[in-house]
């Protein structure tokens, strides 16, 4: 009966999470009368389409950036055990800092008269300050930073599960390191990569504070649109947008779980 151990949590989640979420989502088809009109209107809603595309595009860029930056860090974390504690602290410290504080930090760094611009100008590399803050690039940088741990940790987990004898065998058979990496390490780490990509992408879809604080003048995300509709008291449409966002995330999660080995990557102590 080990499942009973989870019963309190399941009851709690049903009462305080699942029910309110379902009740809210029901508004998309029942407020004020039963109808699918809210969903039928979506394909013609230019604001929704642009916002959804923008949110998707930002999430994609952030996912690619986190992957390119995160994979080497994950590799270092696993292959350089002496440095692992330090690397882990560097990853986790920002992870434990509030999103609001980190967004403010990026404002200080990327601003027109911020540290980056001042340094580049002092070094004579720039004549006039670049505009980075309040552009989509600032959003992408800040979001990648916030989401990096979600990429690094699953990849590191997958790398740790690779049997070291496989690497020794490869080099014993005369494979140079780059080839061992491409033909042994990289393929075996793909479940971790897939898990990281999924986590980062899905989390990025829901971002609100960071794009609002550091983003460009035309950056509206789906979450902002939902908040706007809630404020406009158009809760039915807000619920419709929430349902679409939730469905998108669920479809992505479902698709990734079907990839071989991805489900395992979420298990922390598989070996």
């Amino acid at each position, binding site marked *: 009966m080990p499942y009973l151990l989870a019963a309190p949590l399941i009851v709690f989640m049903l009462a305080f999470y699942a029910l309110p979420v379902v009740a809210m989502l029901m508004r998309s088809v029942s407020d004020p009368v039963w109808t699918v009109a809210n969903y039928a209107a979506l394909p013609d809603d230019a604001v929704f389409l642009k916002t959804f595309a923008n949110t998707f595009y930002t999430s994609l860029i952030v996912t690619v950036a986190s992957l390119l930056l995160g994979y080497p860090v994950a590799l270092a974390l696993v292959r350089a055990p002496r440095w692992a504690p330090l690397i882990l602290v560097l990853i986790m410290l920002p992870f434990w800092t509030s*999103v609001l504080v980190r967004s403010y930090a990026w404002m200080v760094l990327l601003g027109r008269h911020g540290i980056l611009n001042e340094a580049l100008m002092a070094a004579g590399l720039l004549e006039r300050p670049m505009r980075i803050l309040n552009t989509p690039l600032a959003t992408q940088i800040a979001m990648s930073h916030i989401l990096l741990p979600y990429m690094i940790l699953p990849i590191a987990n997958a790398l740790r599960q690779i049997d070291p004898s496989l690497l020794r065998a490869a080099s014993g058979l005369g494979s140079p390191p780059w080839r061992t990496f491409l033909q042994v390490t990289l393929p075996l780490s793909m479940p971790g990569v897939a898990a990281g990509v999924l986590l980062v992408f899905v989390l990025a879809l*829901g971002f609100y*504070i960071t794009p609002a604080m550091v983003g460009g003048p035309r950056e*509206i995300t789906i979450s902002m649109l939902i908040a706007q509709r809630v*404020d*406009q008291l158009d809760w039915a449409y807000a619920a419709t947008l929430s349902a679409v966002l939730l469905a998108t995330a669920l479809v992505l999660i479902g698709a990734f779980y079907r990839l071989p080995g991805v489900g395992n990557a979420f298990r922390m102590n598989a070996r």
Partner: protein
Amino acid sequence: MSRQRSTTFGRRTTLGLLGAGLAAPFIRPAAAQAAWPEQTTIPDILKGSGEVRIAGFGGTMNDAQVKAYYEPFEKISGIKVRAFPGSDPTKIKAMVETGNVEWDLAQLSRGSIMNLQKRGDYFEKIDYDIIDSGVEPIYRFEYGLEMLVWAQVLAYRKDLVKGEPKGWADFWDTKKFPGERAMYGTTSGGFPEMEFALLAAGVPPDKVYPIDIDKALASYDKIKKDVVKWWDTGAVPIQLLTDREVTMSTVWNGRMAALQAAGVPAEISWSQGLSKRDAWGIPKGAKNKVNAMKFVAYSTMAIPQARIAFAIPYGSVNSASNEYIPPDRLSVLPSAPEIKKQLVNYNYDWWIDNRDAAVNRFNKWLLS
């Protein structure tokens, strides 16, 4: 899925936090030296017992309200005040619909009260028999009473702008006044400043309403590329001006005191600003609605209204308040006669009827 919001801060919390940090210097305004007027008697009908639960915006606003009228009201009326932060029409909608009304009174606006009232019965009617006769008629409406006058105005960096911009044609004129701009956007339930767009296009102040949305958007086209931020809370333009990200922005006037107190060379240009108001609303079915009504009447009397202006640079709805406010303090309030005549009265009625259309048109324009 919006993990960021659920695990860190909601928008309103963020707003409160930003507000609390930036607005702290409000507490020591120039008028602090002058003695605050005291309300020494009140009509017996305003006295009572028990409590009243009031939702405001927290932070500095709450500090000002505690000193201006929460504490004096407790002493003189015998009714205990319990203050809550985070007033929000969407919460009132949820409270009334679920029959779990946790507030007896909330600080909102005529727009947010009437927008909600349009969709059902969410507010109690105001009992105007006990309201002070000095409260001007334009601030009265059936389901609420306006109680705080503020302004949305042009602010600029004196050190980055040559000369003195006056009105929205100057704000739009990036040749005469080069530099980036910031304006109020719609992402946090905001309202586009279509009035300013029309004034910039040469529409006379008395012809702004009813707003011609097409004309406003056409005017917005001319400034679009220079607006680097469509801000969503009052702290943002203050930060943008401080960090020299923009040379001019629209601002809520009360926020500028903090900026100036911090030594940033920034100035308000009152000309063609919008005069806006906060309002008290009593949620339908509030347990202590009688006490709430008494508090509404007390807080809009001349002296409590004057006291607010001592704490925060916002004006009064009571025509008798100005005589209790020293001239140097009055000169920075949107309700001062000299300033009031430069402002355009925000037309809540137009926005109540047209908000959805205007915001949706603006969004479409912004993303196109």
